[in-house]
């Protein structure tokens, strides 16, 4: 069959391509400043990774347009982790040995980043993790590991203060993603509930990719918790809101910030009214000129796309990296010495970006960023995010969730 002969040829060619791609990597004619960027660019989290990438490209294109650093262009090398730790490890090894990157950035999801950061530490290459909140990433004493996103206790601190001082719920329940993202938050909130004397009515779970939450919500409806902690990503969170409405279930939903993406608002619509979380959404801090500038430039570059939390975290991540590289000095022939200098420069980071001020503590964890408790409130029927506490920063007062028939 002619097709089969053609196919044999294709395979042969593929074989050759494969073998030849293992010659020296074709680099640009002039030297660049290579930075490896990790992220789940395929799979179910791909759209969030895209947001992160867009934020990063905004920063990098800007710097390169002005001539780069020392006349060299910043080169972002993207590596797809497929949200799997083993693929992440393979990609980061490639970055370090083959692409000879100066530093690794990006990264989304804790399980992958725990693995990749360990590799970076073993290979003495600095890594600055962008979006992952498990405390484990920075508490293993790895000096080459930094993180520009707050960890879970920090993320939840804002909401927790509000819960403790203002809301004081008597009964709570948990509806969590069965990942470390969900379980870490669960531990923190469980401890908090203990502290404020709230009764924990139920601990329920779901898997990423689940779409039917009616079983869990029906159970919650029966228990009637005042507040329900819900850690989920965009799709699941939006579906939970919708299904809560369909089942006529009312509670004060409390989540984290990562779910309040544009896709979430599009999917949930007005049903997500009153949902709360702890967010670093840039559009909340428009009074800050740095943030306003970022939002304006982002919207200009990406034709009216609204920047969300992942875009701003991506932006901050690469800005911190570029700032450290600048302070470390021009790259030399000695890759290890360069990487060590960048690590030292990272330690001394102090820069104002969209999340606020970025400074690292002794463990490489940023400690100067404080997410605020936010609530979704309807403005002309459209859901918007407002900071509701503390009063000094609040954009709007907290609203108690009304029963469904009394809304709108």
């Amino acid at each position, binding site marked *: 069959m002619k097709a089969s002969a053609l196919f044999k040829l294709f395979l042969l060619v593929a074989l050759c391509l494969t073998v030849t791609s293992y010659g020296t990597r074709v680099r640009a004619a002039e030297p660049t400043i290579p930075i490896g960027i990790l992220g789940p660019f395929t799979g179910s989290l791909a759209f969030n990774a895209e947001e992160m990438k867009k934020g990063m490209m905004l920063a990098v294109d800007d710097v390169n347009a002005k001539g780069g650093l020392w006349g060299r262009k910043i080169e972002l090398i993207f590596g797809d982790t497929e949200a799997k730790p083993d693929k992440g490890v393979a990609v980061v090894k490639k970055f370090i040995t083959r692409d000879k990157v100066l530093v690794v950035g990006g990264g989304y999801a804790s399980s992958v980043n725990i693995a990749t950061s360990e590799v970076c530490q073993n290979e003495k290459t600095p890594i600055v993790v962008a979006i992952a909140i498990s405390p484990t990433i920075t508490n293993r004493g790895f000096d080459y590991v930094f993180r520009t996103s707050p960890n879970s206790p920090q993320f939840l601190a804002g909401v927790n203060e509000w819960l403790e001082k203002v809301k004081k719920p008597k009964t709570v329940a948990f509806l969590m993603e069965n990942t470390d993202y969900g379980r870490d938050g669960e531990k923190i909130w469980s401890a908090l509930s203990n502290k404020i004397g709230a009764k924990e009515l139920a601990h329920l779970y779901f898997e990423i990719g689940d779409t039917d939450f009616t079983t869990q919500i029906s159970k919650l409806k029966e228990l009637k918790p005042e507040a329900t902690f819900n850690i989920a990503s965009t799709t699941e969170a939006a579906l939970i809101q919708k299904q809560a409405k369909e089942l006529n279930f009312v509670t004060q939903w409390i989540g984290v910030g990562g779910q309040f993406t544009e896709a979430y608002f599009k*999917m949930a619509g007005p049903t997500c009214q009153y949902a709360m979380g702890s967010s670093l959404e840039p559009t909340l801090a428009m009074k800050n000129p740095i943030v306003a500038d970022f939002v304006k430039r982002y919207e200009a570059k990406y034709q009216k796309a609204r920047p969300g939390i992942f875009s701003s975290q991506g932006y901050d991540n690469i800005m911190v990296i570029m700032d450290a590289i600048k302070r470390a000095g021009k790259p030399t022939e000695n890759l290890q010495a360069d990487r060590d200098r960048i690590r030292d420069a990272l330690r001394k980071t102090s820069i104002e970006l969209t999340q606020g001020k970025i400074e690292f503590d002794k463990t490489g964890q940023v400690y100067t960023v404080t997410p605020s408790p936010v609530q979704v409130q309807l403005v002309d029927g459209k859901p918007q995010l407002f900071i509701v506490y503390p009063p000094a920063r609040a954009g709007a007062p907290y609203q108690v969730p009304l029963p469904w028939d009394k809304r709108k």
Partner: protein
Amino acid sequence: MESLFLQQVLNGLIVGSVYCLIAIGLTMIFGVMRISNFAHGDFSMLGAYFAIYFVLFLSGWAGWVGSLVVAAIGVGLIGFFVERFLFRPLLTRWTDIDIIMLSIGLFILLENGARLLFGATPKMIPDPFESKTINLLFFSTSEIRLICLLFSGIAIFLLQLFLTKTKTGVAIRATSQNRNAATLMGINISFIYSLTFVVGSALAGLGGVLYGTIFAVFPMMGAVPTLKAFAVTILGGMGNIRGAIFGGFILGVAETLGGNYISMQYKNAIGFVIIILVLLIIPQGLFGGVEKK
């Protein structure tokens, strides 16, 4: 506790009805052609995307109903070409494993192709009722879910009518039971194959629209319905349509009740545990499947 139980049963029935539609297509195709199509759930995904794009042109009620029609026709057409050019050539040459693996390849291709074409961002098919809730005596649900349940029921009923009362339908069932005898009776097997695959795929497409309305639409959405459809099919007996109908509802309710009373964490495992248990005791499924080739 009464109302929670009934609520969960209703939840299970609604989800089960969507599983049913998708599973019926799968079991029909297996019954007639002995094809286990692991890409079946991706036909649902394609149906959902047809709807997403169609409602951009026509919104509200007309849009939703129209999208069902478009999805059925669109996916049916795709099914026609897939059957004719991918599966048909294989039927006489190779065996079960090859077909399963071909369909796995198709599954990987469609899932990732969809991500490239449509984007990874999840979407929803707009609910013409806007999630209006209905509160009945023992349970609550939304209007659209009831409509979907109703629609599934009607679709299943019409399908049964087709299969029992029309000549073509009877021919399909005959081929399913005994292909050689059917040929001897003068049935055009080639036509029956195409028709069955088209109808089965169209049903999957419809299921996809319902799924995308009640739940969400994203490129990876085909994987779970495929597994559930297989679970349902095996539970009911492969090739047995009545089995698929019962199996769908049984699985749906088993998952919600199991999740509620046993464990939320392992809710998704319940389906598999049930099939494994059933298969160990009754290898042909609850209602008996068709003989293998």
